């Protein structure tokens, strides 16, 4: 499978993982993740519930560190640097690799302060007004909120909140933006707006998204990893990557039967 991947994914890689196994305590949650995430592209993780898509995504910016029982073996390389090496500062990792969550989670502060939060943490010395405007424009939210920057970030619509969260992630100028089912809580129109936005963003950023929506993966992504799950005799469910390829191949000519069945909607 690996050799096959390397042929089909011939670009600069931002992430490269080697035999990553992810555990919660003794429980093996995801096994043998071997994956290259190409630069300036959108990589989608699809698969049934509980297959570990989000778990893997959260490993890319060490957000799983917040869970005490979590640990992994194998390597996750970010531009060749092992993210889990002891000398790596997780806080610095998260500054370069941003995250957008399933539920829009703006801070209970003004729209302006939501955007300015990250830059202030980093000690940004430039023109904050300009940065806020630029980030909101980049997040396709400026026209909606330019007259109410003092309004609470929690008082705008769900779709706007999610774009605010994207703009907030952009404001710290990361290289990668991870999105964990960014449209799961949104209506179809807001979803389309976010998808359009993702297409614009991939010129400057590398995006990795988890989605339950297969149309979204086929419409919006360049590469797709299909995660599957298998249970052991104790009933513990371990996720793994069934197939990873260009999105067209996954949806039009999958090599595995399970992928074929999943993308055609026969299970999951």
């Amino acid at each position, binding site marked *: 499978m690996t050799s096959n991947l390397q042929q089909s994914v011939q670009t600069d890689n931002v992430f490269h993982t080697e035999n990553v196994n992810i555990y919660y305590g003794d429980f093996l949650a995801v096994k043998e993740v071997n994956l290259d995430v190409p630069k300036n592209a959108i990589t989608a993780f699809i698969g049934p519930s509980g297959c570990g898509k989000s778990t893997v995504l959260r490993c890319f910016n060490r957000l799983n560190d917040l869970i005490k029982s979590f640990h992994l073996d194998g390597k996750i390389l970010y531009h060749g640097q092992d993210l889990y090496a002891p000398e790596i500062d997780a806080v610095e990792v998260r500054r370069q690799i*941003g995250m957008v*969550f399933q539920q829009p*989670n703006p801070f209970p502060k003004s729209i302006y302060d939501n955007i300015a*939060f990250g830059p202030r*943490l980093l000690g940004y010395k430039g023109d904050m007004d300009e940065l806020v405007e630029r980030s909101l424009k980049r997040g396709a939210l400026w026209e909606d909120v330019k007259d109410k920057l003092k309004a609470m970030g929690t008082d705008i619509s769900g779709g706007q909140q999610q774009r605010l969260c994207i703009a907030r992630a952009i404001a710290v100028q990361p290289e990668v933006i991870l999105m964990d089912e960014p449209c799961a809580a949104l209506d179809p129109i807001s979803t389309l707006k976010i998808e359009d936005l993702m297409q614009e963003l991939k010129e400057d950023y590398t995006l990795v998204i988890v989605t339950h929506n297969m149309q979204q993966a086929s419409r919006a992504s360049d590469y797709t990893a299909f995660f599957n799950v298998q249970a052991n005799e104790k009933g513990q469910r371990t996720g793994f990557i069934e197939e990873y390829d260009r999105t067209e191949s996954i949806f039009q000519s999958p090599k595995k039967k399970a992928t074929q069945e999943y993308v055609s909607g026969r299970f999951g």
Partner: protein
Amino acid sequence: MTSQEFPASLAKGRSLERAVTSKTIFSNVMTGLVFACALLALIPLFALLFYVISKGAVRLSPQLFTQLPPPPFPRDSPQFSSGGFGNAIVGTFMTVGLGSLISIPFGIFAAIYLSEFARDTKFANGINFFTNVLSGVPSIVMGVFAYSLIVLATRSYSAMAAGFALAVLMLPTIVRTSAEALEAVPSNLRQASVGLGASSYQTVLKVILPAAIPAIVTGIILAIARAAGETAPIIFTALFSNFWNWDPWRPTATLSVLVYNFAITPFANWQELAWAASLVLITLVLFANVLARWIIRKR
């Protein structure tokens, strides 16, 4: 399950109109009963308020807040209604203020540690357990503790000793309400902040604490309101004073001890002052509770 298993009154096509059955009668009687019990629970409060207001209101005047306690005067004396307890009001604010000054920082920091850094660890569970034990310790024991630790060491009763006793008394309430408030902050805010590259202390300081502040303030106000009415730990720490005192290391009058001292004397003017002090104290506590409610509502 055939229709024969149900009583005939549940037959298909039965009337939808209200019927008086044993069920509806039972339901009405029970509703009446719980309503009566709820009223009964309010009676002591209103009786107490009525009693304190009717006894204490006669002496309400500005001089209560500006003058010192008078000597005992007989009822026919022209000076019967003179004097006040300004020093006790100052003393109450001083002891409660000192108690808050000590307990609030300690309480909030402890709560931050318990809820943000040590959540669900054995250590945190242990501290939680002992905090609950501490909140069950009778307040007079706090007084004895402060007496032996501060009064004996400094060889003087003092507002500081009372403040210390009240701080120990307030601490469990503040720790518990603050930890609950911090834990109630949705975890997705925590993730948002951490995901933007905030360190844990930046997350706590800039996201978690601001979101929890209203609930924390509410807990603090309730703790203060309780401390203001405490008498037992103050009697032998702040003791009492008939004079103005601004020095935290000197004995100090407080409203609650004034009530205790004056109510049990045979002097009618002192007894009236005790009622008036009770009214002022209740008003202060009531005001604090309303303030706490208002802050919750505003959220």
